């Protein structure tokens, strides 16, 4: 899984003369990469609080997600390097975009979803990830991006209310979710064009690997068939309420939200067949005042032990699969990058959505109004 040797060579070629400090840090990073089980202690000893007196602003989405990231990434980073992590935000797409346009960001590290990364990195808004500092070989290849470090993976799953459809007699495919006769009652999708079109096409019999580029007309025609039985959710908490209160019998829910409902005792379960994975990336806005500190923070995001902390707290799946060795057994089945679950789904195409999001969002609104 790790390609330490070839990567090391590539790094040396790209950066032939690293400074003494950087060389020492590289050694620490390489050591940590070689053995995921290696405790933080060695990193701390080697890095020897070389960033004390420095700080960076970490901005992410609110609530429990931020708390988990602080515990999983920020605190271990501060402990290892002496850098202070200031919590900015909360993350707000409009605020970030205004900041990026102005070219004077005040956030050093920001959590963005994959489609935004694809759109904004093309505009040149983010710093390129310095692979001499960040050991990207630890990250599973399909989540590696030039301008972001994949922090968690989550997925769009078929969800169902177990009172309405007991497990075993539940909708097992998107074709089932779109089958109003077989599974009567209201169903739900997210009020966004992605990945609603993917869901419609899967329901219409398109194979997962043949989805992209999307057959848009076919997708909207399929959506028409459930128009009168459809409730659209706008926020994740709304989706939990719709499933938990039995307003809908089946439809779309995010795996992490289903896990949260399940833990709270709500009659909510998910199906892994035809799940669509999506990724949150940490990015460094171009011109961030503490970009160098932020780049070092990224190395701590790639580490298996930190990603395992994240998964154990919130059931968000690691991008460094070595983390599975440290993840609780009862959490594993809920994780999108667990090999059994990943095999039954696909990764969303951020390149497709980067090029089509704006036009298709307008078409989605048109469809809603029709």
């Amino acid at each position, binding site marked *: 899984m790790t390609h330490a040797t070839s990567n090391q060579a590539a790094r040396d070629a790209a950066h032939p003369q690293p400074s003494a400090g950087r060389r020492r840090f590289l050694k620490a990073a390489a050591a940590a990469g070689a053995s995921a089980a290696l405790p933080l202690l060695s990193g701390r000893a080697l890095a020897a609080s070389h960033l004390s007196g420095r700080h960076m602003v970490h901005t992410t989405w609110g609530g429990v997600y931020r708390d988990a990231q602080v515990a999983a990434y920020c605190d271990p980073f501060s402990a290892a390097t002496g850098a202070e992590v200031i919590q900015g935000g909360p993350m707000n797409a409009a605020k970030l975009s*205004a900041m990026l346009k102005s070219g004077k960001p005040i956030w050093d590290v920001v959590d963005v979803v994959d489609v935004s990364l694809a759109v904004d990195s093309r505009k040149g808004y983010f710093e390129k990830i310095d692979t001499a500092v960040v050991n990207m070989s630890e990250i599973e290849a399909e989540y590696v991006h030039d301008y972001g470090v994949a922090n968690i993976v989550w997925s769009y799953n078929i969800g169902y209310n177990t009172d309405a459809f007991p497990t075993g007699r539940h909708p097992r495919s998107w074709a089932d979710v779109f089958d109003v006769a077989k599974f009567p009652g209201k169903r739900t999708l997210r009020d966004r064009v992605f990945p609603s079109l993917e869901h419609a096409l899967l329901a219409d019999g398109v194979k997962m690997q043949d989805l992209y580029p999307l057959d848009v007309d076919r997708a909207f025609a399929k959506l028409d068939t459930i128009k009168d039985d459809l*409730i659209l959710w706008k926020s994740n908490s709304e989706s939990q309420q719709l499933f938990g*209160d*039995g307003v809908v019998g089946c439809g779309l829910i995010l795996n992490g939200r289903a896990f949260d409902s399940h833990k709270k005792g709500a009659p909510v379960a998910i199906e892994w067949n035809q799940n669509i994975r999506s990724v949150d990336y940490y990015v460094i806005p171009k011109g961030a005042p503490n970009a160098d500190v932020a780049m070092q923070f990224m190395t701590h995001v790639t580490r298996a032990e930190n990603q395992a902390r994240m998964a154990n707290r919130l059931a968000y799946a690691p991008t460094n699969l070595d983390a599975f060795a440290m993840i609780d057994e009862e959490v594993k089945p809920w994780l999108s990058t667990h090999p059994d679950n990943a095999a039954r789904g696909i990764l969303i195409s951020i390149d497709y959505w980067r090029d089509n999001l704006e036009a298709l*969002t*307008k078409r989605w*609104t*048109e469809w809603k109004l029709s």
Partner: protein
Amino acid sequence: MPSTVIRDRRAWLVAPALALLLAAFVYPVFWLLLRSASDPVWGFHNYATALSEAIYLKVLWNTVAISGATTIFCLLFGYPMAYTMVHAGPAARRILIYIVLIPFWTSILVRTFAWLVLLQPKGLINDILLGIGLIARPLELIYNRTGVLIGMVQILLPFMVFPLFSVLSRIDGSYMKAAANLGAPPLPAFFRVYLPLSLPGVFTGCMLVFIISLGYFITPALLGGRRDIMVAQLIQEQIDQFGDWGLSAALAMILLAGTALIFTLAHKVFGVKPAIRA
């Protein structure tokens, strides 16, 4: 004229309010106007888009239709409420005022979520109606226009009740007595004497409710169905997802101009002066 205003020293009392208005209203509106005509390039293309494409026209129409219906329902519920408040005894009046005020002090978000709980198929209202056998299947009270109107009317009712209450309580009771003395039955007396006297309150209440409704965002988003998209939601989406300030600013300016137009027309057609005026 201006010199007399300036010579009057009390005029300076308006300076703080004027400064606030300049900073918090005139400047942002001017900035929006500028953005609407300059983002991404100079011209009226944003207005052309907003006023020619079916999607924006439909959403603008939705906004006016939802706001109009909210205003009518607020008037239908608010007028009898204000009338009762004026003619109740002091103790009952105080209770009625608090009945209007306490929800008014509660956050819109909280009230919208409360409606979510009450109106859903397995919510309290449907449970009670099913329980007493009044209905056989749950009523569809939410995720449609009905839900939007229930939520918005309840939230905006105080803006109708208070202007009406203030105008109705100033109507001299002897007019109605005079009408009765002259032989008018109660209903004609009400429509020909009382109602015309209360029109300034009706006008102010309707304008307040209508104008506030135009900018509504969270209630239609949470209680509405697929089609119940209002302009504010579209503006939010354009800015949040695409950073499209130009089109959003144009939509906001159209909303503002439309409001001003409706206000002026209503003023001219009905010939009533609002209870609050310059």
